[in-house]
């Protein structure tokens, strides 16, 4: 009871401190007045009476202090006082404070940004009720990387078994062609199997979700059904309350909307935002003319996850999966050779934790993100080291003040606490500033990172984990910044410090090892960041300089989706020809052709071909239109381009690039020769040999490629991309293509335009972003290190004023003084650069996989990094050195 009352009254006192202090003053004043009066009544004179009164009272200040301690909550009050003091200290040196806050905000901001990307991609669990029970299934075939893509037969067999899994489900990202009021539109969606929604356990906002009954050929007895997202309900149906039961025409087939899922539900792939969920078994309709289901074990197109039964562990699930792997392999109806091969390589299914869902992008972006995180960590460490050394230099300057306070009875712990409060204040303010900008930056970084992968989304919003992370680095950096300087500043012999003052003897002090080590490590980290930036940019420029084999400037791609319209065969080719002619009439257009695969867009098509003599080779393929090589500016060495006359009836033709020609015909002329397709038993006549060009991505060398005429393409209703060479404005082409398509094939969705430059940039988006970040960080590191070197040296030099004065009075030259001051930083820069170089060489191997034709130990890059740091160290030493050189000996000595 008493305790609570005391605590309450103490807490209350926190808020009334000012008034109570005044009251206490008055009360004590009254006490002394009363005492003086009494003494005077006893006959003492005024001064003696006052002295006697004060003596009897004891220390007035001590009494007040003890009274205040008794009154309030001392720790809180002390902290508040420290905070006010720290604030005043910081405001007293605005330049230092600004630098400190900016560097910290940069360090913390960068870390938070990259952490929020990592959080969104790698850490955040799916927002479903029981994510912990989800598991991702994979196939182990003895290869170096497990396989996460399943074929339909394997999945359907797995789906039937419920020994360890309550539900097993498959999903696949898809574009659904939905008919709207003004033509068709491609809507991002997912094909999902029957148990998908049961496993994810999220109740629908309206209607019902899809069930196993919906996931069968032709749908449930009531017909084909889809579930839509809340976003799609908004945009397409304008939130109509009667949306359940309405029809959506997808791929020319009516589907019934049976439910709406709430906004937080995004399925099992955290990087997708599907707007329509359609049953997996509707694939032959939705993906027509393709049919992944009939393709059986040749179509590896779905990802599979399971929901463990309550109480079943992952180990149990894995054990069960092992026992059922073999029967399922045999059930799948594969040919005997395939089954034998798989058995030999220990084919089996396996499960891994799936609370975070499955996205292929994880494997894509994990490494760049971790590399970026390391860079951010480096910059934060650098910022902390920098502040620590600046604070230490300042602490040295404040040593006398601190020593005096120690002598007056302040406890060392109390002083350290106060100094730490200062660094904590810095850290918290810096973190707050960093956090404030983090969401915007991480959003745009995510957009940049995912630039090349259309339709992918990364949720980088701030959650508790990010907040905790930021708080953690704030505290850690506060301790990093503050503890060493605080310990240093309060250590040592008191009376020495007080006596020292502005003495000439302080030369030694600067030679203490710790500040030097801090600064040198700062330089080392800066060197590492510079090396990192240098390597990445060198690699990127080499990548761009290496060329792609065609001229991307002034090239525009316009993609047409022809798979759901009526025409096929020669009639479709006629349509493409009309589209091409329409496009070539646009202003500025030089030539137009068509291609099936857009180079460098990370998709590919390959096949095994042979010469009549034997030699089978795997080559990449593309199906292209007439005038393709002229449009792309790929040189035609011998032979001719395809023409509209190369139809199916006119005999199969093929054009090889040099690499392919050399592979098939190492010692001879390829022109006019035959290339065979052993599987289809067909023969192609080589009609030209053209220059090499890159195919799937920029960092791989140009592979052997075979081109076939689009008119002879085997696949039904090919969706081709027009490639347009233009020297006019590119933007109007999109509108022109849309009008043209609307006139000639009104049923297809609006064609999509991208420039080839964009394709190139997107194909290296991760590399580009890393290089960009690395350069930015390296620039910051240089600046911060420069400030650190400058700040420390100028503090130290200012404190050596009288020493330098004596030296000069004794005959030292100004040049000598400049050299002496310079030497201080030179030693630090040299040691730091050396350490940084060694560390870079050791660590750069980790970067090797990001580099294109660039050695991680590129001597130029290493040299440039050291040169840059030397430059910045010189610049940082110049002003303090000159200032030292202009010291007037007489003035300096008078300061003693």
């Amino acid at each position: 009871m008493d305790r609570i009352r005391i605590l309450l009254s103490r807490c209350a006192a926190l808020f009334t401190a000012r008034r109570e202090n005044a009251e206490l003053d008055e009360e004590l004043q009254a006490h002394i007045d009363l005492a003086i009066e009494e003494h005077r009544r006893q006959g003492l004179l005024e001064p003696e009476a006052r002295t006697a009164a004060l003596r009897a009272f004891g220390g007035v200040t001590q009494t007040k202090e003890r009274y205040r301690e008794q009154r309030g909550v001392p720790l809180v009050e002390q902290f508040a006082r420290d905070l006010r003091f720290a604030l005043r200290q910081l405001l007293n040196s605005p330049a230092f404070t600004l630098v400190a806050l900016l560097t910290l905000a940069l360090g913390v901001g960068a870390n938070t940004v990259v952490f929020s990307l990592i959080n969104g991609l790698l850490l955040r669990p799916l927002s479903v009720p029981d994510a912990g029970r989800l598991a991702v299934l994979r196939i182990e075939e003895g290869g170096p990387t497990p396989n996460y893509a399943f074929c339909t037969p394997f999945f359907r067999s797995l789906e039937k078994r419920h020994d360890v899994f309550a539900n097993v489900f498959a999903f696949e990202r898809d574009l659904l062609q939905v008919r709207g009021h003004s033509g068709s539109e491609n809507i991002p969606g997912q094909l999902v199997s029957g148990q998908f929604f049961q496993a994810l356990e999220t109740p629908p906002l309206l209607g019902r979700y899809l069930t196993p009954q919906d996931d069968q050929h032709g749908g449930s007895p009531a017909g084909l059904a889809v579930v839509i997202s809340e976003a799609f309900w908004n945009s397409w149906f304008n939130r109509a309350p009667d949306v359940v039961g309405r029809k959506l025409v997808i791929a020319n087939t009516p589907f019934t909307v049976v439910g709406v899922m709430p906004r937080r539900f995004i399925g099992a792939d955290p990087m997708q935002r599907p707007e329509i969920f359609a049953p997996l078994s509707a694939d032959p309709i939705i993906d027509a003319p393709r049919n992944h289901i009939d393709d059986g074990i040749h179509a590896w197109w779905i990802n599979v996850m399971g929901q463990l039964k309550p109480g079943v562990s992952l180990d149990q699930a894995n054990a069960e999966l092992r026992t059922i792997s073999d029967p399922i392999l045999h059930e799948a109806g594969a040919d005997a050779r395939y089954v034998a091969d798989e058995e030999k390589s220990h084919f089996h299914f396996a499960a891994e934790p799936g609370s975070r869902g499955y996205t292929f992008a994880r494997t894509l972006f994990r490494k760049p993100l971790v590399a970026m995180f390391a860079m951010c960590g480096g910059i934060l460490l650098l910022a902390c080291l920098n502040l620590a050394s600046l604070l230490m230099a300042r602490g040295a300057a404040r040593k006398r003040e601190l020593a005096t306070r120690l002598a007056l009875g302040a406890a060392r712990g109390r002083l350290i606490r106060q100094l730490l409060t200062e660094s904590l204040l810095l850290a918290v303010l810096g973190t707050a500033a960093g956090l404030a900008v983090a969401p915007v930056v991480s959003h745009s970084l995510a957009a940049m990172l995912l630039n090349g992968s259309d339709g992918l989304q990364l949720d980088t919003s701030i959650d508790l984990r990010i907040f905790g992370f930021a708080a953690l680095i704030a505290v850690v950096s506060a301790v990093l910044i503050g503890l060493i300087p605080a310990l240093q500043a309060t250590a040592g012999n008191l009376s020495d410090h007080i006596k020292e003052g502005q003495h000439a003897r302080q030369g030694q002090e600067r030679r203490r090892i710790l500040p030097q080590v801090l600064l040198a490590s700062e330089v080392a980290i800066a060197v590492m960041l510079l090396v990192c930036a240098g390597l990445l940019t060198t690699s990127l420029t080499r990548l761009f300089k290496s060329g792609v084999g065609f001229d991307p400037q002034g090239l525009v791609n316009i993609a047409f989706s022809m798979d759901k319209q009526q025409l096929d065969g020669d009639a479709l080719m006629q349509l493409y020809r009309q589209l091409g002619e329409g496009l070539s009439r646009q202003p500025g257009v030089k030539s137009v052709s068509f291609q099936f695969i857009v180079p460098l867009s990370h998709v590919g098509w390959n096949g095994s071909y042979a010469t009549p003599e034997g030699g089978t080779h795997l080559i990449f393929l593309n199906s292209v239109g007439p005038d393709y090589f002229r449009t792309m500016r790929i040189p035609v060495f011998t032979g001719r381009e395809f023409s509209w006359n190369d139809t199916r009836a006119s005999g199969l033709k093929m054009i090889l690039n040099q690499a392919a020609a050399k592979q098939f015909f190492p010692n001879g002329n390829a022109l006019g020769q035959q290339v065979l397709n052993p599987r289809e038993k067909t023969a192609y006549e080589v009609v030209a040999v053209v220059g090499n060009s890159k195919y799937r991505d920029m960092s791989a060398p140009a592979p052997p490629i075979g081109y076939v005429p689009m008119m002879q393409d085997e696949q039904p209703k090919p969706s081709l991309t027009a490639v347009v060479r233009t020297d006019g404005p590119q933007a109007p082409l999109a509108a022109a293509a849309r009008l043209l398509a609307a006139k000639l094939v009104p049923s297809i969705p609006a064609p999509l335009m991208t420039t080839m430059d964009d394709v190139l940039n997107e194909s290296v988006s991760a590399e580009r972003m890393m290089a960009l970040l690395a350069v930015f960080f390296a620039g910051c590191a240089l600046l911060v290190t420069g400030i650190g070197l400058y700040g420390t040296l100028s503090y130290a030099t200012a404190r050596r004023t009288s020493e330098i004065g004596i030296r000069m009075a004794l005959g030292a030259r100004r040049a000598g003084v400049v050299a002496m001051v310079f030497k201080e930083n030179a030693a630090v820069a040299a040691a730091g650069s050396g350490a940084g170089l060694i560390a870079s060489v050791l660590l750069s191997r980790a970067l090797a996989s990001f580099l294109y034709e660039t050695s991680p130990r590129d001597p130029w890059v290493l040299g440039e990094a050291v040169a840059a740091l030397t430059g910045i160290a010189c610049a940082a030493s110049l002003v303090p050195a000159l200032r030292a050189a202009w010291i007037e000996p007489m003035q300096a000595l008078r300061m003693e």
Partner: protein
Amino acid sequence: MGEKKPDVLQGTLDLMVLKTLEAMGPLHGYGIARRIEQVSGDTVSLNQGTIYPALLRLKQRGWIKASWGISESNRRAKFYALTRTGQKQIEKETENWARIAATMARFLAPTT
């Protein structure tokens, strides 16, 4: 610095203040300090200032209350008075103190 007098034992000061207020009625800090000095007959060293934290402690426990008043010499001063809980507390504290004193006496008595 003159001869050393024993310091006031922790906790005894509180009881002294309470007893003073019981005997004298409402009194300001100086009055309490003087009264304690007089009663103890200058046998203990008391910095007069130390009674203020003690007064605050008693006030926080709710045993005494304070109000501004006018001193005998017409000066504004803070007057302290016992509360009802304080009155009751004196008995308990006195018993406590007597018990401790008795215990101490037994330790200090010459062993026979």
